[in-house]
């Protein structure tokens, strides 16, 4: 029993490492193609990680080490628990442990860039976290379960909860820090924010942070796929479609302001969820 669980967890982590890396590589490649560049090979993120790990470790504040480890491990745990089909709300809570450590690690450094980045990341968190929980509550409303195993038994959620799906896509966009939501760490280091929250993570610790991002991406994409869980292949295709859409949006929009994000996301999120709830009631 326990070995089985551990093996499942282990394999899911391996697979999501590969998936996360390749997806990030695809992201870079597609973005480059859209901008008329050739772009790096799809495998580039893996080369980057290997390179970063081989660098000499350098920190400003020793707490950054703890922050990087805690961030990486909590996201790995989230992936494993997702693969074991446990409670979704618990998975979200565990993911937020990582985010908190990541932010506090950046705040531990008194550089204005990482400080400002960390502050902005906090506000991003305040926007996406409630929306994510709302989506889960919506799923519970429909399926009567927070457990992934319970959710997967039901018919495709996308038919009942199309607008919740949109809210989750919005969460993905904020979580991936893509334009127009790239406040906390601008995509390119030559902007005014430098690299924001990531500025003072370097070497192996930056590698850990990057990998943690991969896992986060995988978990949220998996949640999207859950909306079509009865047809796994279609579900994965659906989440890939959203992923592609995010890349397109990233390339056709510019960064907005923090206040705009709070207002827009909460208004959109609340409107969408309530319309969807009304829809469910009418159909019943």
């Amino acid at each position, binding site marked *: 029993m326990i070995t089985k669980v551990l093996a499942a967890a282990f394999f899911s982590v391996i697979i999501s490492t590969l998936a996360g890396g390749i997806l990030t590589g695809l992201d870079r490649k597609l973005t480059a193609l859209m901008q008329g560049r050739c772009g790096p090979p799809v495998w580039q993120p893996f080369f980057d990680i290997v390179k970063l790990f081989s660098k000499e470790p350098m920190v400003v504040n020793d707490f950054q080490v703890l922050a990087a480890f*805690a961030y990486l491990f909590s996201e790995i745990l989230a992936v494993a628990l997702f693969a074991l089909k446990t409670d979704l709300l618990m998975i979200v809570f565990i993911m937020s442990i990582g985010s908190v450590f990541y932010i506090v690690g950046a705040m531990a450094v*008194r550089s*204005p860039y990482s400080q400002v980045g960390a502050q902005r990341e*906090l506000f991003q968190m305040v926007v996406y976290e409630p929306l994510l*929980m709302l989506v889960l509550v919506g799923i519970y409303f429909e399926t009567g379960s927070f457990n992934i195993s319970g959710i997967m038994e039901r018919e495709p959620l996308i038919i009942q909860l199309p607008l919740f799906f949109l809210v989750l896509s919005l969460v993905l966009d904020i979580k991936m820090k893509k334009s127009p939501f790239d406040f906390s760490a601008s995509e390119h280091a030559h902007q005014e924010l430098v690299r924001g929250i990531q500025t003072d993570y370097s070497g192996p610790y930056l590698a850990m942070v990057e990998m943690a991002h991969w896992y986060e991406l995988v978990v949220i994409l998996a949640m999207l796929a859950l909306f079509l869980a009865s047809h796994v292949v279609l579900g994965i295709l659906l989440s890939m479609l959203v992923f592609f859409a995010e890349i397109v949006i990233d390339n056709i929009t510019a960064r907005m302001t923090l206040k705009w994000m709070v207002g827009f996301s909460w208004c959109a999120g609340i409107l969408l969820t309530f319309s969807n709830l009304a829809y469910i009631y009418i159909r019943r």
Partner: protein
Amino acid sequence: MVKILLSSSIVFPATVGAVSFFARNTGLRKAMIILSSFLIAVISILIAFYLKIPGLYYFYGSQYLPDLIIKLGDFFLIFYILWISYKISEPKIAVFTLLQLIMLVYFDFFVLKESEVPFFFADELSILMNLIISIVGSIIAIYSLGYMERHERLHHVSPTRQPRFFAIVLMFIGAMNGLIFSNSLMGLYFFWEFTSLCSFLLISHDGTKEAAQNGARALWMNMLGGVAFIAGIIFLYTHYGILSLDELLKFSGGNYITIFVALLGFAAFTKAAQPPFESWLLGAMVAPTPVSSLLHSSTMVKAGIYLLLRLAPIMKGSILSNIIAIYGAYTFLSTAVLALSQSNAKRILAYSTVSNLGLMIASIGINTSSSIAAAMMLLLFHAVSKGLLFLCVGTIEQEINSRDIEDMKGLILKMPVTSLITSIGILTLMIAPFGMLLSKWLAMEAASRHFAVAMMMAAGSAVSVIFYSRWIGNLISTTKMGVLGRIRKCKEKLPNSILFALESLAFMAVAMSLFVGKIFNALIKPEINLMHMELSIRAASGYLSNGGIGGFSVYPVFIMIFLAGLLSLMTIKNSPALHTTSYMCGLQHNTMDYEAKNYYLGSLFNEDRFKRYIDFISAALILLLMGGSII
């Protein structure tokens, strides 16, 4: 035996308090307080082990004497408070006290028929509260020994007012124990008023003008609650002839019972400082910090929650319960937003206390077995962690002479022990796998059928992550390179009593989260069975299963955090990382420090303006609640 224990849980602290008022010898008083704190904690543990619960018990020695004392005590309290209102010339206190006096005279002399009820009623909820009050209370009392000494030195208080302080604190502990063990509603009312008085006396302890003003505000708001309380009791007795808790819990429900619930609910809201009454708790922050820790976060404000938990079975399934859920969730969110705009650590803690109490009220309002369990768990974990954080702020304030979190930047290098304990305290309030978050998870899952409530809960808990994590960020952020090496060289000098209190509370906060399954099975599960509810939650070691809906396992998360900590320590030790300066875009300068302050969004969430709206809406919700009770 158990009678002696129960009686002494009230009488012993009160007596020691009275004695310590006259103990002018500092050393003797200190020894006495340490010893009696220890004894108070032991008594509560013995009660938890030996008492047969649920059960009714008579007072040790005499049955009539305590009733008589309470009856006389009521009048004594009222006249004393009237005298206070005359002395500080605050007419509002006098008005509300006179109203109570009229009702009390009417009730005691014209309505009440003599009957004999056991003095004590004890079940798991009382035991839980008793453990919190006696153990956390004793630890805070011991902390106060070190704190008050420094406090009086810093404020040049002479002659010492410590005897008065400790007398009130110990008597308060006794009164709180009385409040939660009392079977007669009149006894409950007496202790309720007594704690209000203690709160006033301790808030105005320092005797400054501000302290007197804020004390007066606290007193009139609590007296207003007292009016609702006595009115509720009279209503209940005249309609149903019920005057004790055990009859109330057996009560199957009547037509107008919701009016009683609404009146007592109102009293509970004033005690728990829910908006529009939150201003008294904010004002109470002028009191010496152990007071804020003991009365205004871990025990007294919880009396409101205790009362609502008692009322929960009666209001089950009513509209009233739903309105209370919405009201609680609303206060949870709105006061969390208010806390967001603060940089004063004590005000942050005060607002977040109000906010967490709102969460408990929301959980009680949802009124399912899981949500009641969540409320009880929140009660426990919040008491320990918040009490700890207040003590930390007090310690920090005495050292750096400020309670602003912006002034706590880099505190880890000056006060490593306190900063680490503060960070642990904050983490236990903010992230899984600690008890607070586990209970929040349970509350969220229980709230899922009430979409509006769930939404406000989700938003509120995300907002509280902001002000907590930036506080940790400030504590550990430095401009110096490396931290661990410097911490090792730094010696922080703290009085033993303070160090003991901080360490034991921090240890409790973490250990309790580890053994959450055991605590659940021992104290929370039986209480919910007692309320005749279908219990859907099962707890095994480190695992809470929410009956097919979901489940939370604590151990993997603990292991994960432990591994992260261990590995990072090992990496730092084995391959000493190169310490570098932070990235400044080439603007490094030896003589210049860079500053980046936290976002407070003062323009968006202006406290004064925002508070007016919040008070207005919450007052409207309370009116709705009153209206809803009549329907």
